[in-house]
């Protein structure tokens, strides 16, 4: 399966994603500079974490105007798989490929730590290798991961089962204490209506090897490999 990782000025998990895809999952990967428009014919595009444009103004606000994002939008419209991690999630929301927005963490601080997330939907290309309700241990590292959407938007997310992962405790309970950033309804990651675009704040790129303290991120990568890709 072919992956492309977009690289914006200020991306800094681009190498981590590249490493996981190539060295841990054993798949070919291309790095695509933000000024380019040719995605190199991938099956899946990864929009990595980091601080594109320094996160100046608003996270993801400037990156969405990069030439490469037009290609990513076209690719997604054709049904291609697009996963945005952390800053990548923020960019996808800003670009309108995913609904809602990510506000400053409730505690106003950047938080770096492992958290637990509960897999709420398994019929997505990103979670098909998980069991319903499975709890994954995956790190977060962000200052603006507080997911927000208006009530109608939330209803739509629920009706379409677009809430894919939510923050929980180690046993899978969706408690306020296990919600690290104040996200609405403990939302950690969502997909679009067509389910081919996925964004999440936690980092499956940092948790795909036991030596790093968790390999749970592999469930997400394995799901992508197992997904039937169809770019029409």
């Amino acid at each position, binding site marked *: 399966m072919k992956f492309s990782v977009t690289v914006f*000025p*200020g*991306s*800094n*998990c681009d*190498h*981590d994603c590249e*490493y*996981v895809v190539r*060295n841990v999952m054993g798949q070919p990967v291309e790095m695509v*500079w933000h000024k380019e428009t040719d995605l190199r014919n991938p099956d899946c595009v990864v929009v990595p*974490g*980091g*601080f594109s*444009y*320094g*996160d*100046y103004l608003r996270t993801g606000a400037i990156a969405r105007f990069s030439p490469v994002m037009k290609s990513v939008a076209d690719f997604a419209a054709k049904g291609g798989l697009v996963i945005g991690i952390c800053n990548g999630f923020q960019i996808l929301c800003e670009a309108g490929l995913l609904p809602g927005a990510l506000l400053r963490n409730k505690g106003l*601080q*950047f*938080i*770096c*730590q*492992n958290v637990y997330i509960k897999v709420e939907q398994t019929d997505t290309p990103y979670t098909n290798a998980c069991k319903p309700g499975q709890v994954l*241990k995956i*790190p977060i*590292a962000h*200052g603006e991961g507080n997911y927000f959407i208006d009530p109608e938007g939330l209803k739509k997310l629920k009706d379409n089962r677009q809430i894919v992962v939510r923050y929980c405790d180690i046993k899978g309970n969706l408690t306020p204490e296990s919600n690290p950033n104040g996200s609405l309804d403990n939302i950690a990651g969502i997909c679009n209506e067509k389910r081919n675009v996925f964004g999440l704040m936690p*980092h499956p*790129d*940092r948790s795909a*090897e036991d*030596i*790093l*303290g968790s390999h749970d991120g592999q469930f997400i990568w394995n799901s992508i490999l197992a997904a039937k890709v169809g770019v029409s």
Partner: protein
Amino acid sequence: MSPTMMDIEITPKIIAEHGLKPDEYDRICKILGRKPNMTELGLYSVMWSEHCGYKHSRALLKTLPTKGPKVLQGPGENAGIVDIGEGWAVAFKVESHNHPSAIEPYQGAATGVGGILRDIFTMGARPIASLNSLRFGPLTDPKVKRLFAGVVHGIADYGNCMGIPTVAGEVVFDENYSENCLVNAMSVGLVRHEQIIRGRATGVGNPVIYIGATTGRDGIHGATFASTEITNESTEKRSAVQVADPFMEKLLMEATLELIHGDLLVGIQDMGAAGLTCSTCEMASRGGAGIEIDVAKVPQREKGMTPYEILLSESQERMLLVAKPGNEQKVHDILAKWDLHAATIGIVTDTGRMVVKENGKVVADVPADSLTEAPIYHPAKSEPAILQKHRDFDEKSVLIPKDLPDVLLKLLSDPTIASKRWVYRQYDHMVRSNTLIRPGSDAAVIRVKGTKLGLAMCIDGLGSYCSLDPYEGAKIVVAEAARNIACSGAEPIGMTDCLNFGSPEKPEVFYYFDRVVSGLGDASRAFGIPITGGNVSLYNENPSGAIDPTPIVGMMGLFQNVDIAVTQWFKDEGDLVYLLGNIGDSIGASRYLQIQHGKKTGLCPKLDLGVELALHKALRELAESKILQSAHDSSDGGFAVTLAECCMTGLTHEAPMLGAKLSLPGSGRLDGRLFGEAQSRAVVSCNPGQAAQLEAVAKKYGVPIEKIGQAGGDSLVIGSEINLPVSKLADLFFTSIEKIMA
């Protein structure tokens, strides 16, 4: 230059305002064979400041051991470099940003991180980790709270945005830092041997290129500012505050590494303290060449800047480089890719002179060497009378408290001892997916992808010990850092130091400085760990006196096989727990004596360098033989705090807490055995099947060893003195700073 500036008559007042002494001015006149103009005076003023010129410290620093078989680069360049095998080397250095942080904590700390990162990638190394060592007054003071929060926020924002994990550090809160906080930042980078590059200008006619942020009036006289005491006046020198731009630095880092790895450069140097002046004259001087630049070509942010201002500006996120012949266009292309400013501002010459022009007209012309060779002073020193008082302190006058469990709880809640989770949670310590041991254990551990190699790193300082016994205290700083590395199972391969002191012009302060440097040197020699670079921050004074002499040591350790790395917390029910080393019973100089009895005095623990080294060797062999389940060095807070940490710090890596049932070894004062800070000790555990091997290794190295009990249960039991639920210990330890900062 505006003619008005050229014509300014240089008066003794102007000379003094530039921080130059009358005889230094005479020396400048002699070097030039004439009087300097204002611009030239500015050049000497910044380069001969303490911060850049090391006037008072250079003679003593020369006594430090800097060589070793693995040292590829010692002091003198932007960072030291040590070989780690397989064609890889590690570059690292620590630097202070104390004064700017005191004035503007967020920007000061952030630009401090930016500066040290530039020092690393300037060598061709990709930064892989950052560390920091912080000192503040007591957290009960709301002003200190704001300072602490601002500094941590600044460090976090800069490192996080750069995508470089901040993996370790230390924080101490003590009265003596109330008016002078210390912010020391360290960075570590990885480089292939063949890609190491230095800050040298060579090759007559080669282009000198300026890249990065534009030059503004910020930070003019930052270097001289960092070298003078904080007075009420310095709040007026506000232009010395620079605004950090980590995004620009990230671009600069990627572009710089692309240029270096593309073999396009002869030399490169960042613009830190003393800005363009420093980078220009240092590159020329190291390369044995001359340099000629035209300030009119420097990209400027503000209108009407004079050559004096352009040369002295400390605008951040800028670099100066010398391209290989014929590569100028390629350099500009790469910079354009990263949307960075670049301007060819001059050429390398063979005159040995630093010549500055403005639109072709010479405005400064001085020998480059003369700027980098500031006068060397040998200040007077005299032992402060208070040291004898500390030595004479009678421990017997201190009553042993009745409720020892309460003392333990009190110590665990002391912000200096308590977990710094509130701090490191704000740092991205996992980015780049190499961090195997995150903050929470004795040393952080980073893997080197594509190899089995790993790096252990830590940063330590002990101002209070040094204030009581500077020589012994300095030895202990080195020993503690090396012990932290050894507990993780790695071999120490090099260190960097930052010396934070008061005014060297006061004989009592200089006495401390002299003794500390001796202690660092002796420990470094005894352990065979070279000091490959460092930084000196003097004049940390305020109207009520100098700070404690505070040497900070950053240490690097190497794993041939990083899979063996050991963490400090107990692992399994039933594991056997041992004390390596002697328990001791003195309470001198301990945090306990300070917290419980309000006394910062007593005999500093003695450190036998040979005994200490044997412990490190034993710990390493134990780790390499995979005998250890855990290893934790025993330092501030003493034996009881060490054991409590072994029980609960697994939480930092999502491991469960685990109690232990242990005896209290030794004889003598109970409080000394529980809370005293005798050196050369570690608490280790192994599963029962490996007990014999563990004991044999300890014996082999002559390290005293005593089995003290077993891990297990929900409580920490130490003899008949202490029996407390671990959950209670953890609650205080992990949340005490959080509660204060909420």
